[in-house]
């Protein structure tokens, strides 16, 4: 919502994302900072950002599927795994460029996700949420038990580095731009999707699928599409992951990871793309702080013993997530919206 006194003068302007000069300016500044980041901060931060971008892509996809379309999905890590395996195997066996393998990874995951989405035509609510856990188990089982010449089985797959015009993208800095580039496109696309008729159809199906059907929306197809899009994002994230780590194995895509993606969108706020980004940021930052501060505490407070400190860190991570959910069950984005609207009407409450 705009501050008082600023009104859109056309419908086009009314649906613009960036609406005031101040907003435009801060967006430009933000993008500039992101572009310059590798020159401003150390490689550790750049590496954290790389992982954040990947998580952001995956979490934004989950947000579309769960936050917008209301289909709780506990298989996002498996979808990511499908993408990662696809990209890895294509890159290894065919030597295709990442410009192709990453989108194909997205499509492969989308197909897998779509299959699960089809069950959403019949299964609803918690039942559906919990059947998506099956995706996790099936993915795991399939990778380990299909002939190992297909997916590498327990051996995993080694991924050659991404190359662009003969340049190998291996340093943090180079990888950073790859991750940023893809994440930026995906996030921008997510804004596009949720503002379009598809985004509205997703919310319609989430809020009231009976009414949605009567509005002419094909409910089953819409749910399956939500899974498809969510999984596409996961797959692209998985593709990026493959190029970042350059080795994929099933144990990198566990149910626990899926749970963390859910935690991210909850902390950030359901039903908001920005919320998903905030959630990724908050949770990754907490994780990194714990990983960084932990050893220091363990070192300085030696009598505690390393194990206690680190177990304590897990408590903090879980505690912070639980705390967020208790204090702001609708997510940080909700708090922000409220702040904004009270700022809009301040000082007149009515």
């Amino acid at each position, binding site marked *: 919502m705009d501050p008082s006194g600023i009104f859109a003068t056309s419908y086009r302007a009314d649906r613009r994302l960036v609406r005031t000069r101040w907003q435009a300016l801060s967006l430009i500044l933000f993008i500039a900072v992101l572009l310059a980041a590798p020159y401003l901060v150390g490689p550790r931060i750049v*590496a954290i950002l*790389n992982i954040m971008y990947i998580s952001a892509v995956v979490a934004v996809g989950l947000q579309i599927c769960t936050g917008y379309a209301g289909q709780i999905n506990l298989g996002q890590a498996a979808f990511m795994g499908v993408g990662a395996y696809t990209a890895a195997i294509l890159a290894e066996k065919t030597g295709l460029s990442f410009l192709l393998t990453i989108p194909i990874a997205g499509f492969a995951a989308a197909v897998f996700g779509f299959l699960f989405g089809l069950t959403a035509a019949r299964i609803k609510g918690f039942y559906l949420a919990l059947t998506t856990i099956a995706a996790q188990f099936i993915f795991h089982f399939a990778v380990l038990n299909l002939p190992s010449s297909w997916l590498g*089985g*327990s051996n995993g797959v080694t991924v050659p580095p991404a190359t662009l015009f003969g340049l190998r993208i*291996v340093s943090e800095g180079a990888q950073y731009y790859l991750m940023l580039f893809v994440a930026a496109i995906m996030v921008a696309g997510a804004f596009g999707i949720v503002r379009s008729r598809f985004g509205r159809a997703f919310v319609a199906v989430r809020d009231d699928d009976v009414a949605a059907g009567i509005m002419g929306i094909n409910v089953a197809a819409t749910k399956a599409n939500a899974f498809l899009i969510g999984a596409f994002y996961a797959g692209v994230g998985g593709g990026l992951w493959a190029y970042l780590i350059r080795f994929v194995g099933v144990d990198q895509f566990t149910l626990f990871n899926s749970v963390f993606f859910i935690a991210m969108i909850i902390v950030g706020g359901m039903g908001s793309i920005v919320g998903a980004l905030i959630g990724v940021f908050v949770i990754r930052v907490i994780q990194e702080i714990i990983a960084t501060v932990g050893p220091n505490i363990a070192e300085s407070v030696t009598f505690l013993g390393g194990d206690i400190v*680190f*177990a304590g860190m897990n408590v903090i991570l879980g505690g912070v997530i639980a705390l967020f959910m208790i204090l702001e069950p609708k997510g940080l984005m909700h708090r922000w919206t409220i702040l904004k609207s009270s700022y809009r009407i301040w000082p007149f409450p009515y």
Partner: protein
Amino acid sequence: QEETRYNVALLSDFSGPYADIMPILAAGREKVIDWWNATRGAQLGVTLNYKNYETRYDAAQVASLWPGIKSELEPIAVIGLGGPDVAALSERLPEDKIPMFMATAAYGYAWKPDSWIFNPRPTYSHESAGFLYWLRQKRGGDGPIKAAIMASEASPAYVDMAKGLEKYAEEHPDEIELVEVIYTEVQPTDLTAQMRRVARSGADALIIQTNTSIVVAAKRGLQANGADVPIMMSSHNGLPASGKALGGLEQLEGDYEAYGMAIAADEDTPPRQFYQTLSDSYGLKAPWNVVTAMGISQGLFAVTVIEHAIEANGPEGLTGEKVREALFAEPITTEETHGFLPTLSFTPEAPFPLKGLQVNVGSVRDGKIVVEATGAAIPNVEKW
């Protein structure tokens, strides 16, 4: 004498699945470095600094930590822990030219030439094959030895253990007959039925290199069936740990542990003496058991390679690359590792020594851990 400082990064898991063994494993490898600094390092004019990094046994965490470690520490070597470290760094380390030294046995999936990650022990399948080879000799006779193996799909590494032995048994039907390959969960509900199959198949040994909980459940299953098939365990789920979880070592009477590293037996062996030194003079607070031994051996493995590199290049200008070269240049003798490890000769062909492989076998006799065999030869296992 002016002293030169180098950094080593230690990857740890204090809050993930290996948090149970981490404190003593970490103590073992840290104290070795302390010891080295005080003795060998002081002579050579080199001090090694180390720092622990919490990876939570999570590849994403390793990947995000690594660039920071690299720029913060500029380490000449990394001391790693397990699968996720390997997964996250196997393609990075060659670029960054820093070698990583592991404590555990190697995996089939990491068996590739030109590695930068090195295990002092061959793969788990080598170790189990070596054990079975030894058991067959002990038994005498011509027929193959019958073995069963427990695996789990919870971790690809666990699957790998079974796959390697399966391949070996397939190619050597006269040596090993693999009668059962059983997959279960990391915390099985009940293995009575499975153990009956094992007992009925007439297995001479049951290989369990996965984890302690599976050993315990299998043992209970065997007991329920009144069967007496000896179990062979690995280092991270060995006799002391499994015995403790079962409520007493006596429950494991006649069972084995086997790995290419010194057995932490009660006897007074050179490794035991070295452990004592670390405890007495360097403040090592860890019981004498296989996990501590694993930490110490890993530490010794790493410092010895570094020492070789210093000897070859002088104390100045040491790099990760030179450390790796030193590994190939010269074998690491069993004396240098105080008997913790056999003499290791690395080649660029594999991340572990391919020749002169040996396995040690420990067992429980009258409620005590004893060394059954040292230096039992490991047969030639082909890559699977």
